[in-house]
């Protein structure tokens, strides 16, 4: 019988009822997944090198957005700074490969590990802050990273403004595919594993505990859930995912430089997440698609007004799909099943 307090903290991330819906149509879902996977495996042979590269990037961005999703969508903590973790992962890869000759596949766990530690450290002060105040801190991180990377005192490590060149991963000798295709399949494998990991995390007891904290922290704590521990670890895990995406990104682009990881990258990730659907795992891929392709489309329509076109497209998408692509799909399915049951 209580009215929700309107005067309190303004931020309350949207709740995702995705899990309940998933339970409702298991069989169809598995067919769809299998179909999508089959198509994904075939794509590199259908398209040319540059498109394959772009598809690889879509997966990478999707993974980065998944990291952000774990933090904001499932754990309810706001971050406008995930571009920093992406950049951090990318630089770990670049430095390890360039300075220490580490093989590319080992750099992924390294990038993930470093980002996990940094993310967890971030999570600690984040416990004290809510909503907009937390946003400011993550925002500070996003702004600080490019500046730190350019800082002359660290140039020995980071290569300063010029950045570092990264070698493209070699194809294992016995496979009859080119380097772009190899990178695509490598990325696909990593992304599949990580999405599966995220999915099982969300469905697990831990995942439910995290969502309980998001929805009502005081009640969750009263039930014995150690909120600070979960929240901090989620920050770490979220950073890990985005960091691995950054590492893959460095391998794909073969180059890291401070200005590639500006505040705008963080904002693009956030926009991609929202348009894909907060709290939705498949939505992250839609977000990745959006982040990669729409700026290009905007530039083709009008060079001078590219930013404006991008903005207009964003508006159109959000007006039509206020809960993102995932929300829209859910509504469409509900509409169809209601029509069927008339």
């Amino acid at each position: 019988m209580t009215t929700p307090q309107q005067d309190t903290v303004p931020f309350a991330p949207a709740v995702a009822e995705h899990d309940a819906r998933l339970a409702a149509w298991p069989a169809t879902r598995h067919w769809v997944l299998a179909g999508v996977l089959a198509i994904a495996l075939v794509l590199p042979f259908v398209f040319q090198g540059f498109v394959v590269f772009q598809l690889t990037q879509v997966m990478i961005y999707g993974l980065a957005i998944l990291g952000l999703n774990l933090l904001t969508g499932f754990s309810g903590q706001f971050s406008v700074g995930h571009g920093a973790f992406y950049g951090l992962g990318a630089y770990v890869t670049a430095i390890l490969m360039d300075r220490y000759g580490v093989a590319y596949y080992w750099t992924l766990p390294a990038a993930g590990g470093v980002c996990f530690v940094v993310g967890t450290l971030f999570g600690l002060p984040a416990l004290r802050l809510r909503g907009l105040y937390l946003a400011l801190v993550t925002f500070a991180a996003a702004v600080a990273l490019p500046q730190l990377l350019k800082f002359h005192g660290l140039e020995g490590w980071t290569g300063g403004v010029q950045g570092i060149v990264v070698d493209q991963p070699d194809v294992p000798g016995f496979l009859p595919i080119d380097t772009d295709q190899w990178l695509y399949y490598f990325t696909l494998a990593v992304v599949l594993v990580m999405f599966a990991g995220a999915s099982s995390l969300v469905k697990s007891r831990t995942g439910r505990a995290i969502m309980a904290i998001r929805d009502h922290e005081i009640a969750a704590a009263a039930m014995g859930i150690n909120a600070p521990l979960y929240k901090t670890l989620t920050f770490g895990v979220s950073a890990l995912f985005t960091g691995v995406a950054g590492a893959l990104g460095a391998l794909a682009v073969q180059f890291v430089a401070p200005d590639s990881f500006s505040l705008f990258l963080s904002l693009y990730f956030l926009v991609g997440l929202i348009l894909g659907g907060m709290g939705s795992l498949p939505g992250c891929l839609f977000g990745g698609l959006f982040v990669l392709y729409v700026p290009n489309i905007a530039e083709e329509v009008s060079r001078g007004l590219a930013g404006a076109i991008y903005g207009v497209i964003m508006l159109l998408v959000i007006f039509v799909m206020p809960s993102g692509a995932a929300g829209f799909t859910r509504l469409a399915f509900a509409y169809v099943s209601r029509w069927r049951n008339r």
Partner: protein
Amino acid sequence: MMLEVNGLEAFYGEQQALFGIGFGLDEGRVRTLLGANGAGKTTVLRALCGMIRTGGDIRFEGKCIAGWATEDIVRLGVAHVPDGRGTFLRVTVEENLQLGAITRRDRVGIAADIEQIYHHFPRLKERRTQQAGLLSGGEQQMLAVGRALMLRPRLMLLDEPSFGLAPLIVEELFAILRQVNRDTGVAMLIVEQNAALALELAEHAYLLETGRIVMDGPSEAIGADEGVRRAYLGY
């Protein structure tokens, strides 16, 4: 009839909460809506104020107000004291009262009404410059009623005014409501779990069970009914 409701349905998203309710209220009269938790009492008041999706017919002073925006219904003279009180916690007690009269233009009348409210509720006068969020539950309830009265409403909707209050304070409050009804002729529809008090104040009562009206009659008759006595009056 000042308020006429026919075939009222109400929905929270996909869930239907009211299934074709019908009732009415004359000018100056007091009626009560009884029922257990979850029966749909609060939903009825929310539906009347356009706060949720509805179906069916709602008429206030002849006008069909179904589908109207809340603020427009309020401006017709309908004051709603919601469950949870809806106090503006960050402004002062006096500002809360001023907000109640925000749609009125007569400065003199507003000032006089504020004094009248303080006369009914002296505790509010003591705390007039304090932040409303610091008041106790009982004081906030009085403030909520006072704020509603500042509208000079023709109809007052009260949602569980006794909730969470000490018995003595509840009696005080109901006494004031009775007096206000006598002095100003404002009609009242009171939703209550405390059946005894509500039946004392109101002339006519409705009993709501899972979204449907199951009993409808004068308060004495409802109060005398054995089923009601066992379930809602405790004897």
